[in-house]
């Protein structure tokens, strides 16, 4: 990737050009042509457009084009100067208040608050009453009105930035505070301040023109748009054009600035754009009935998930050719590092793929308690709703955000029950409280009425588990359910999950997703290891952990400190590691995708993309030419 620091991002080109053109016209045109904005020609009052006066003449016969241009100069200058003053004062106040805290903070923020509690135009009118109208008053008033928004933003942004580790790192280095503020904090808060500057400029134009419209802003004979609208109102019936011209100028100025702000915001903070997460969009309709193997409750067959990267970039396969079977009453672990595609695979099973990611080949099948298997990723929305939570349920990594913070826990549980059965309130409540008790939540009846933030992380995860099991699904997907929890809480949740199978009346198959091979050891019967979107090895848990066949699985085990209790750094011991980092999905190497990190890689690994070779016994499989499962002829043929 090349650094793009000095070029204008594509989305900024149009608004920048528009704004430059607009401002340029206001200031440059009068230099080239000679206009007189104040010359009165009563005989030609309200004359229409002519060569000498392209926009016609106003009620005093003055040239309207000249008045629009000069009025623009006045409006834009007032707005710019006032915004600049507001920016300077506000940013300084906010920065000092937030970085040095203490009394600075109190004074800075309280002063801003007081100003914010006055409706802007009214405060302006109060000041005008005392000082009388005029451009200087106007600039002062606008700066006073708008500096609090800058100090608020500078304050909150500085608060955000100054607790970031890199600012702390500068402090730890002994860098002087003034240098930290100027070189580290300020550049990182400039984005939002720039956005605010543009917004303020637009607001200044609005307020200025409004005041001038009332005759309390820019005073005649100096032209201004607000004033032009005011005087044209008198001749509205004879000369509607006189109103449109300044209105259009005013609108264009504000519109150009707003467009600039919008695009600037998108560029600075891409979060708000369309790529955002989306769990609500309907899935596409269609797909026939998928088949399900004997004894399996859910199955993926040669599933490929593809990310659409827009028109300019080719789509990329995030998950490739993944096959996996969840057997009845068995726990399967799906293990891999971040980016291996393990969570996407699970989401595909649930039909919850993020927008932009689609299954492009292969088959997904989820068994139902009654009826034929379905493919949730392509089922019609209404049909999918009846399966999700009913036949297959899921719990997530972050218990702190997985429950809706504004609804009571009880409500969130009963709505899950009511979605799948006709059950009255009282009964749903009883069932939910029983479910809370069964996952080890003390005082379940009172917790039922609690809000999520009143519970600890461990308790919330228990609530999630209880909620997922309410409708007695056959399959439970647990996506890193303990990663965000402390180790002692993690152990308790693992105990709970392990016991579910026996306590869950009609049997349960769990798909347990984790980055930690250690944690799956005593919960899973079967382990599937993923790397860079592919399954690289699978088999019974004890066999995989005792004797991994794929070099990557082996390396994963070797690099865990907990697997090497005899090693200690003080003795000069090192952990066996895999060199390098996993490839990005669109930059996978040719042949075997783990070859550039593999200690055993041979030249042949670059030419053959290995299949997931299955042992004749049918239990284990590994995606490596040198695994015991791989047919021997493959390597020999290439070697010759």
């Amino acid at each position, binding site marked *: 990737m090349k650094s793009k620091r000095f070029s204008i991002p594509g989305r900024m080109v149009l608004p920048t050009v528009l704004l430059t053109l607009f401002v340029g016209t206001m200031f440059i045109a009068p230099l080239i042509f000679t206009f007189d904005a104040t010359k009165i020609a009563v005989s030609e009052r309200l004359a229409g457009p002519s060569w000498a006066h392209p926009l016609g003449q106003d009620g005093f016969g003055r040239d309207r084009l000249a008045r629009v241009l000069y009025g623009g100069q006045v409006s834009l200058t007032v707005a710019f100067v006032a915004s600049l003053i507001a920016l300077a004062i506000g940013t300084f106040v906010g920065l000092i208040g937030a970085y040095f805290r203490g009394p600075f903070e109190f004074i800075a923020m309280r002063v801003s608050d*007081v100003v914010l*509690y*006055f*409706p*802007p*135009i*009214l*405060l302006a*009118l*109060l000041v005008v*009453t*005392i*000082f*009388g109208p005029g451009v200087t008053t106007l600039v002062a008033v606008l700066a006073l009105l708008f500096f609090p928004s800058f100090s608020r933003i500078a304050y909150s942004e500085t608060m955000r930035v100054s607790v970031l580790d890199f600012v702390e790192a500068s402090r730890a280095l002994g860098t002087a505070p003034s240098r930290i503020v100027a070189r580290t904090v300020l550049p990182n808060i400039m984005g939002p301040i720039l956005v605010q500057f543009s917004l303020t400029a637009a607001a200044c134009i609005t307020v200025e*023109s*409004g005041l001038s*419209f*009332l*005759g*309390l802003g820019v005073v005649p004979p100096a032209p201004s748009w*607000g004033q032009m*609208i005011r005087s044209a109102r008198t001749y*509205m019936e004879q000369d*509607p054009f006189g109103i449109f011209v300044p*209105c259009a100028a*005013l*609108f264009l100025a504000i*519109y150009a600035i*707003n*467009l600039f702000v*919008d695009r600037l915001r998108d560029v600075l903070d891409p979060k708000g754009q*369309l790529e*955002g*997460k989306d*769990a*609500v*969009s309907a899935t596409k309709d269609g797909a026939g009935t998928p088949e399900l193997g004997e004894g399996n409750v859910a199955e993926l067959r040669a599933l490929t998930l593809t990310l659409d990267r827009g028109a300019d970039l080719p789509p990329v396969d995030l998950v490739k050719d993944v096959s996996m079977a969840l057997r009845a009453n068995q726990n399967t672990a799906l293990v891999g590092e971040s980016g291996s595609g393990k969570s996407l695979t699970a989401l595909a099973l*649930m039909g*919850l793929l993020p927008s932009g990611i689609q299954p492009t080949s292969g088959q997904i099948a989820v068994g139902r308690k009654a009826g034929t298997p379905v493919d949730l990723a392509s089922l019609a*929305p*209404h049909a999918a*709703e*009846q*399966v*999700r*939570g009913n036949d297959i*349920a899921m719990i997530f990594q*972050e218990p702190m*955000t*997985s429950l*809706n*913070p*504004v609804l009571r826990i009880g409500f969130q549980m009963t*709505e*899950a029950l009511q*979605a*799948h059965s006709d059950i009255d309130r009282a009964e749903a409540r009883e069932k939910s409280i029983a479910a809370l008790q069964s996952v080890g939540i003390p005082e379940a009846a009172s917790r039922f009425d609690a809000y999520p*933030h009143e519970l600890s992380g461990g308790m919330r995860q228990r609530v999630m588990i209880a*909620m*997922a099991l309410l409708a007695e699904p056959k399959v439970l997907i647990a996506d890193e359910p303990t990663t965000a929890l402390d180790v002692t809480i993690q152990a308790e949740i693992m105990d709970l999950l392990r016991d579910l199978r026996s306590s869950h009346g009609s049997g349960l198959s769990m798909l347990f997703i984790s980055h930690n091979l250690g944690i799956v050891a005593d919960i899973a019967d079967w382990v599937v290891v993923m790397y860079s979107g592919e399954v690289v090895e699978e088999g019974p848990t004890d066999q995989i952990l005792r004797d991994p066949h794929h070099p990557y699985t082996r390396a994963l085990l070797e690099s865990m400190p907990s697997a090497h209790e005899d090693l200690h750094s003080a003795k000069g011991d090192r952990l066996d590691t895999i060199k390098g980092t996993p490839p990005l999905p669109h930059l996978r190497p040719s042949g075997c995708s783990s070859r550039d990190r593999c200690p055993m890689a041979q030249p042949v690994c670059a030419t053959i993309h290995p299949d997931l070779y299955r042992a004749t016994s049918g239990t284990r499989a590994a995606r490596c030419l040198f695994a015991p499962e791989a047919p021997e002829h493959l390597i020999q043929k290439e070697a010759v």
Partner: protein
Amino acid sequence: MLRFALNRALSAGLMLLVVGTVVFSILFLVPGDPAELLLSSDGITASPDAIASLREEMGLNKPLLAQYGEFLVNALRFDFGVSLIDKASVGDTIATRLPRTIELILAGLVLAALTGIPAGTYAGLRPGRRFDRIASAVNAVLISLPGFVIGTLFIYIFAQFLRWLPAGGYTSFFTDPWLHIKQLTLPAITVGLHLFSIIFRMTRASVLEMRGNDWVRTAVAKGLSRKLVVRRHVLRNALGPVITVVGLQMGILLGSTVLIEFIYNWPGLSGYLVTAVQQRDYPSVRGVILVVSALFILINLMVELLYSMLDPRIRLE
């Protein structure tokens, strides 16, 4: 909850006191004699007699602290003195005109909320689709049109050109309900359009943000219908920020209403205010600003209480 409400009410009260103090003291912050300042214009100084009589009239000869105390006590009794121009009671004038301003704002708010929230939700749930693109483009135009520009254009289009509705004026509802509504329509839409653009924008952004949350995914995973997911887990959460922003926007709205009332000859507070400012009728200006600022603070107090009902976490902060 009660504790939270009392707490917020207390700080709103404090804020009112601060606002009152600022309004009172702003005249004295300026160097020179306040009476002289108010009477002078364009460098021409008023006669000493006039100044002396104004000082007497405004009680400027009393000690500052006494003036301040009197001002606060009187303000609590809705007594803001008499106009310098027509000697009418400022409090009485405000009491007659304030309900008309509130009526206008409420009408605009209802129109804007009824259209902005559904449109914003629809656009936020389907970002980048046709409805969103069109609505967002229209909104970008609306947000760039100051209220008095919309008002001026509306008068031309609907009153002058099409002659569908009156260009302005005010008739009491009890005198002629139909005419009252006709006269209310254009100003209310003008006020509402600006609010609509803010509500639409905020609802869209908020829905867009909320729909990506983990708990929405949980709700879908539970098998809730799309309608319920949107209503309970997206919209319910999205409304809090929308209400907050609308509350803060009320300040700007109260300001732009001044212009809109002026354009449509709607005899609310603003015509009074504008005339007062033009004539530098300080007691009237001070009274109106005090009342409107108090209104603004009260609105924000209500918004905070409403938000805390929507989101239990707020009560803890």
